[in-house]
């Protein structure tokens, strides 16, 4: 197998679907000759032309709503929202339209669309270009939410998202775009709602999403040297959430740390903690459930503060050690 980057995996997955299904098209800002703000659609307008790689005006509300309308009437749009922060402008169309039409209409119609959108901090883009707002959309019945952490997962999950008959918000992490992993050339599907145990272990479970998966794995390696066996679980999709895998892992290890980059308060980690607390895994807990997330502040520009805002490998190591001591 060859190694490709996360950005290349997304592009390959998109292109393969587009070759097979003429209903699939991409729309978004600067996705044409510019190739998208992060270069994901680079070269695609040359292959598919401006009809199917539709370069749009800067009009998030309209392009999101147009995607909903096109999806409702037989197309399969993939919308690139240039930064996930701009979902604020698209929110009515996603929350009040895309998510609800099928239910409101009594099961008539469906909205097979994907919103691909880069999230996360770490690039110095400051408060309006660095957020992780996935908990917002995860709260909305009718939307599915995906957060791939590797190139391999990105390609397989994107195929599932594009084949899903529902609106799917597909979060790509900016800092991961250049990260590489082994990715098969042929198409494959990773079903939505299937977590992945990225590393097996017996003493403690770390449930981590997106970039935190990598930090958790790094922490696990160090902790292993200190005699602590860590299991790292990546839910990969928040909605649907693979509760079974999470509960099984925590029941096995009896200790759990939940880590995400989003602000801890109101973050999705609270939901995961709730799922664990309500399940049979609760009886196996030897220490309180521990959550790590960002400080409750807008993302600061200064690189030192920006880094300090979100959990780092050392923070995870410390949290695991405290949890092991039962603190």
């Amino acid at each position: 197998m060859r190694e490709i980057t996360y950005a290349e995996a997304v592009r390959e997955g998109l292109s393969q679907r587009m070759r097979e299904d003429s209903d699939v098209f991409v729309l978004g800002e600067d996705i044409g000759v510019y190739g998208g703000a992060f270069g994901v659609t680079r070269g695609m307008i040359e292959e598919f032309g401006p009809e199917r790689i539709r370069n749009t005006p800067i009009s998030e509300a309209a392009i999101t709503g147009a995607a909903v309308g096109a999806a409702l009437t037989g197309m399969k749009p993939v919308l690139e929202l240039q930064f996930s922060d701009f979902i604020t402008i698209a929110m009515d169309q996603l929350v009040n339209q895309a998510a609800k039409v099928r239910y409101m209409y009594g099961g008539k119609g469906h909205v097979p669309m994907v919103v691909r959108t880069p999230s996360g901090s770490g690039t110095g883009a400051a408060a309006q270009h660095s957020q992780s707002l996935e908990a917002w959309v995860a709260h909305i019945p009718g939307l599915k939410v995906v957060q791939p952490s590797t190139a391999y997962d990105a390609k397989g999950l994107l195929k599932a998202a594009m084949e899903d008959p529902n609106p799917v918000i597909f979060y790509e992490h900016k800092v991961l775009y250049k990260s590489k992993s082994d990715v098969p050339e042929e198409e494959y599907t990773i079903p939505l709602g299937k977590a992945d145990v990225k590393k097996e272990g017996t003493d403690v479970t770390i449930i981590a999403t997106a970039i935190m998966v990598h930090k958790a794995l790094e922490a696990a390696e160090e902790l292993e040297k200190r005699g602590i066996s860590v299991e790292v679980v990546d839910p990969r999709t928040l909605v649907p959430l693979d509760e079974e895998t999470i509960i099984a892992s925590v029941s096995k290890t009896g200790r759990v740390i939940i880590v995400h980059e989003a602000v801890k308060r109101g973050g999705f980690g609270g939901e995961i903690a709730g799922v664990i607390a309500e399940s049979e895994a609760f009886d196996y807990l030897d220490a309180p459930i521990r959550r790590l997330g960002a400080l409750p502040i807008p993302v600061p520009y200064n690189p030192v503060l920006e880094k300090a805002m979100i959990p780092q490998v050392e923070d995870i190591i410390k949290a695991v050690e405290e949890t092991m001591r039962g603190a």
Partner: protein
Amino acid sequence: MTDWAGRQSDEVVKDWLRQMHLIRFFDEKVDEFFAKGMIHGTTHLCVGQEASAVGACAPLKDDDMITSTHRGHGHCIAKGAEPDRMMAELFGRVTGYCKGKGGSMHIADVDKGNLGANGIVGGGIPLAVGAALTSQMKKQGKVAVCFFGDGATNEGSFHESLNLASIWKLPVVFVCENNQYGMSGPVKDMVNIEDIADRGASYGIPGRVVDGNNLLEMADVMEEAVMQARSGSGPVLIEAKTYRWKGHSKSDAKKYRTREEEKDWRTNKDPIKRFEEWLLEEGRITKEEAETIRQSALDEINRAVEFAENSEEPSMDTILEDVYA
């Protein structure tokens, strides 16, 4: 043309030249620092657009207000900000306008009426409307000048704001800096009319097209618009036709336009060169004075860099500060 700009004193017109040099030197320095990796994040430079910023702010009083954009260094300097505190902000230092927490896209100087740059395209437009509302309700006589790009006029916030400002007859001047492109989207593909100024008509707002690279014309049209807004007759939409010389942000292969087009704007429509030529032709300055002004602007920017480099990083215990008032 009213020739308001031409009637200003030597002192004033020379200061406009100085401001344009400051803006250009500032952004060229920033460009250099990004290329060298000395500043992190991203930045949007307004080299080539100096006249629209300086011309738009020329008729403003100190307590008038502006809202700016991601491409905001020029607006900031034209509204009287100190380059040293701006540069310190780009370096992420505690002496910066935002204590290092905002960076290039969020520089604000509220005391000087600069309500802030904005990372959200179209995000500042309603804010200007609100600022004008305050002025109207408190009878302050202040005007809000609202800067935005051609691309921003395709956001709902632009259209909703123009309508609101119009029905309430608010003292706001909308200044669209049409530099021909969004990030890459050419305005001719993204807007189906020749002049964005015509969009004002839908909202009952007069629209004016200006050569944004001609400082005198820009200042004249702005002076009239500011007067109208201040007098209570409602908003004006001004479209300044201009061009950004550099790429959209630090990483831009500029595949969406030609090098010939860039060269044409640089060599034939340089706003600084044009204004300097006018000053010389009119005998308002000598060649030596022009050179002194240029050199002193460069010195000021170099001092700003020194100031930034010698400033402290924000300390970790400030990280939770300023979330709430």
